[in-house]
């Protein structure tokens, strides 16, 4: 007896047909569009562009509502939040009548090797905030920080609390030294001075790093699953959109990345209260505005403990933490998340208008 009969010719024949069929279908949908909501650039600084999403005809922005600024990670493209009409956090926010802005950090090149976290937080994120407030009036806006963008948003909120009315964080690490953080263990011994001197880091390298946290599932298993026969055309299109996003990562400015690795992953300064940005100490205790912290319970990049730790450090009396039963990327695009997360954010914000 064998685990799988070698003479199972019918199975191998079926497999061959399915492989050929799936390859052909993947090629057909390869050019599938990503990003679905109309937006326009309203401000820029260096390679960073601030976009304003155009209101939906059926849901014009409601008067008196604060605008929402979405601050995504530096290491990925933000269009995952607006991938397709039925998987778009941005679209749901627009449908709720909110004015939505998004920061796209762009592609740093060699001229940006010395762009640092102070630049990103104070000039790029801060400039975006000031531009929006100048445009809309009012003293504060709502910030939605995602993953690494959530970390930047926390820093900004701690330093400029008056400009942020409500803070929503998605898959945002605060304690980088929780025992289950494999990424943190791996980079703990990196020489960040050397890292900085070796120049900008190509996006493919970081992709490889993230994939290597779970290499068999993320580089093999997910493709083989397409052979199960359950993938209709739409599912295949969704799959390709995600693939495109996963493998479309921007390069990282050398100094900012080196600082992020050292200050957050190696020295855990955010949680320890020793982080300084632009000469000022980032004290999470200064965050007194309402905070909604959403994190994934199956996150292999930002372990749930790393994100849930936020509650221990911020000074807000109005904190809502919520673990969602999905993975890191599932938080942005899974069917479950597509309904649950926007609904939670919108109702939470509405209660605090």
């Amino acid at each position: 007896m064998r685990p799988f009969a070698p003479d199972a010719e019918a199975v191998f024949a079926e497999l061959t047909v399915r492989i050929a069929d799936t390859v052909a279908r993947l090629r057909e949908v390869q050019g599938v569009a990503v990003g679905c909501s109309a937006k326009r650039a309203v401000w820029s600084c260096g390679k960073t562009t601030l976009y304003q999403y155009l209101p939906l005809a059926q849901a014009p922005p409601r008067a008196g509502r604060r605008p929402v600024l979405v601050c995504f990670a530096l290491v990925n493209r933000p269009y995952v939040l607006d991938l397709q009409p039925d998987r778009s956090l941005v679209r749901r926010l627009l449908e709720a009548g909110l004015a939505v802005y998004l920061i796209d950090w762009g592609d740093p090149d060699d001229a940006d090797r010395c762009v640092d976290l102070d630049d990103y937080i104070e000039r790029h994120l801060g400039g975006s905030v000031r531009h929006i407030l100048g445009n809309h009036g009012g003293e504060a806006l709502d910030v939605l920080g995602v993953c690494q963008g959530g970390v930047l948003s926390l820093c900004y909120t701690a330093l400029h609390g008056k400009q942020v009315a409500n803070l929503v964080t998605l898959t945002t690490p605060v304690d980088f030294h929780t025992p289950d953080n494999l990424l943190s263990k791996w980079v703990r011994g990196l020489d960040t001075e050397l890292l900085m001197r070796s120049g900008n880091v190509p996006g493919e390298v970081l992709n490889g790093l993230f994939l290597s946290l779970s290499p068999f599932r993320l580089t093999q298993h997910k493709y083989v699953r397409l052979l199960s026969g359950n993938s209709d055309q739409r599912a295949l299109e969704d799959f390709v959109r995600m693939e495109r996003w996963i493998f479309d990562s921007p390069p990282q400015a050398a100094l900012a990345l080196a600082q992020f690795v050292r200050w957050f992953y190696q020295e855990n300064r955010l949680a320890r209260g020793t982080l300084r940005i632009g000469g000022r100490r980032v004290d999470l205790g200064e965050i007194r505005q309402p905070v909604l912290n959403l994190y994934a319970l199956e996150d292999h990049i930002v372990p749930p403990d790393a994100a849930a730790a936020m509650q221990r450090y911020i000074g807000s009396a109005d904190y809502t933490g919520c673990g969602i039963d999905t993975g890191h990327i599932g938080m942005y695009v899974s069917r479950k998340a597509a309904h649950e997360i926007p609904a939670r954010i919108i109702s939470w914000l509405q209660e605090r208008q």
Partner: protein
Amino acid sequence: METPFTHAAFKPDAAFTGAAERFFELLKTFGMPGAAAAGADRDWSSLAGPLAGQFEQWLKSSQSAGPWFAAANPAAPGPGAGVGAAQAGSFGPLPLGAGAAPQQDAQRSWDLVARLAQLQGQLASHWGEIANTAARRFVARLGATAGGAPTLDNALKLYELWVNCAEESYAATVRKDDFCRLQAELANTSAALLVEQRRHAETLVRAFGLPSRNEVDALYAQLKDLRRQLAELTDAARAGGSGAQRPAVRPAGKGRRKRPRRPRA
């Protein structure tokens, strides 16, 4: 062998084909003659060796378990080959590096290359450990999943079990302190080699009177300082209208010039 991140421009059909081919190979291994000897007692131990061998080969060739490690192979860095490795690769055809450098510099480069090779050897032992543990785990758990009707569904179930075992074995190894230290040392050594190659390149560009990377970075730092001063002056001018105090910004060109600070991580 290809993995998705060995491609600069990702093609899902190519990644799928690669994964499907390996699935095909795996099924053949499951049904290989050695396994036939297992008999009715369902002792699949004879499978462990071939499975581990196949798996280890994939780990080594794809280096999927550590993109940073691939930087440790200066002869063939690719876009996914670790921090700085892609840039290091671009130096390949140039008359730079150890061969073109002064004797002492060349020795430093060769030392780094030798160290990388040594670290790669240590890494290979980890791949071997992961492969063997995964294969043993798989064989131990085969139980009822194996020997069923030869259908594609059953094949996929076997595959699912195999992936679970592979991930568990991988996770157990890559969380160990010695693996983490090795990974960091590989990344650091490859970064050091890249910096060394750049240093050689700078010597060459200076010989042609071209600006070097360090000089451009210093100019950028100056520009950044000037921008900052300009912003502060602009703010001060605005605030001046409302009677606020001017910040202590020294007008450009007066007093002792401050050397631009070298950025630090």
